């Protein structure tokens, strides 16, 4: 077990409208600690000194809840790729490193405190159409609806999205298209998703635009940052779904007046 001494440069901001600034803190860690455990130790020290601990989001600490965030040295969820911040271990860093820790940056994700941002815009995109409507009653027999293995695999890959928002944080346009497309494609591939297929993509893309996210310019940074390795193929499929639904849906596209 090798101990390392680090310098953290952390974004501190007392509240949504308070001005923020970077503050440096010394930190010590061993290579087996997760990134969040390293921060826990820093916070314990801060509390002992009577200072406000660094606020950051976390919950399950096993990479499935989508709570933890943090842009670490310019990369959402840190340098490793394919993991969340809570799964990032200190062995990814070297003794003496300076680590810059920032919140997700997007107009739609206002900072609430320090490294905690409000990600409810993603919830509102889901609420707009990321569901299926089913009549209640007795549960259907298992495997009563045939689904091709290929389709179910692709739907599962898209459904792996945990909604952490790293795609928005990584995108130079602060676009939420990887997130939205994962949700759209997941349901569009399944038989259960067919009845609301057109309306879903129209409503979710509309909600995405209304929340003020940017557009996709095919940088690919979202896919590289995604802890669940969601593919940008989903963005292409969502574009296709959206074009099809706009031209073909009988009710027409629900748009909000006043947009460009």
């Amino acid at each position, binding site marked *: 077990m090798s101990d390392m001494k680090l310098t953290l440069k952390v974004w501190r901001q007392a509240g949504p409208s308070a001005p923020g600034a970077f503050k440096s803190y010394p930190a010590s860690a061993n290579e087996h600690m997760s990134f969040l455990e390293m921060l826990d130790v820093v916070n314990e020290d801060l509390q002992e000194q009577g200072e406000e601990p660094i606020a950051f989001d976390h919950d399950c600490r096993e990479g499935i809840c989508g709570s933890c965030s943090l842009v670490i040295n310019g990369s959402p969820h840190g340098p490793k790729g394919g993991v969340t911040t809570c799964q990032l271990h200190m062995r990814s860093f070297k003794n003496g490193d300076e680590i810059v820790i920032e919140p997700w940056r997007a107009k739609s994700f206002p900072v609430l405190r320090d490294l905690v941002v409000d990600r409810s815009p993603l919830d509102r995109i889901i609420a707009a159409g990321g569901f299926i409507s089913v009549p209640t009653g007795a549960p259907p027999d298992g495997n009563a609806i045939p689904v091709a293995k290929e389709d179910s695999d692709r739907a599962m890959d898209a459904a792996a999205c945990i909604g952490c928002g790293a795609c928005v944080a990584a995108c130079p346009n602060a676009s939420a298209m990887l997130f939205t497309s994962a949700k759209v494609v997941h349901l569009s591939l399944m038989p259960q998703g067919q009845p609301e297929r057109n309306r879903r993509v129209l409503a979710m893309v509309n909600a995405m635009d209304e929340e003020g996210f940017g557009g996709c310019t095919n940088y690919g940074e979202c896919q590289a940052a995604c802890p669940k390795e969601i593919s940008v193929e989903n963005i292409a499929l969502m*574009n*296709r779904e959206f074009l099809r639904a706009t031209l073909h849906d009988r009710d027409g596209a629900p748009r909000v007046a006043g947009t460009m």
Partner: protein
Amino acid sequence: MNRFRALWQSVIGKKIAMAGSGLILVGFLISHMASNVLVFVDPAKLDAYAEWLHGFGGLLWVARGGLLFFLLVHILAAYQLTQIARAARPTGYHAVDYRVSTYAARTMRWGGVLIAVFLVYHILHFTTGTLHPDFHPGEVGRNVIEGMQVTWTAAFYAITMVSIGAHFWHGIWSVFQTLGLNHPAWNSTRVTVATALTLLVAGGFLSIPVAALLGLLP
């Protein structure tokens, strides 16, 4: 028409407009490049080609109007998407670490501005002759060869052609993605098509100012 309006009002629709108009401009550039390299064969053939085009009279103006329209759609969509993207990230990062994005992708916007400036110069140079040192209407081959003798002009053309190449490469690859043409079996082909078209078109355009700079033009 409401459907097209609905498309234009969404970020994805603007991207589709950008891709569609871009494709038409790509088609124009392919024919433009193919005719330009006639200067290597015989400058008189370039004159004959220009005369043939002018023979269409009114139709030529329809084509010019169409190209201008799609160019304006392309620029307007780019401008609005840039505004939306800038507004979406008012506060940037202190540390920036691009992992996979290419230089071509990150220079699409300023590259586009450079191409627009070039286009104005190019029309004043070879179409109206306003900025040409010794312009002879109708003698296209001669105008090209003499125009390219000015070193800074040839250098500006060469630099812009490299920039167009980068814009072209990312743009063509992106067209597939924006129009939803993505399939694991074909994705590497998309990049091959973009690279081949870029080498052909940007390379063809680039050959003229480079040949002029090396003194190889007839």
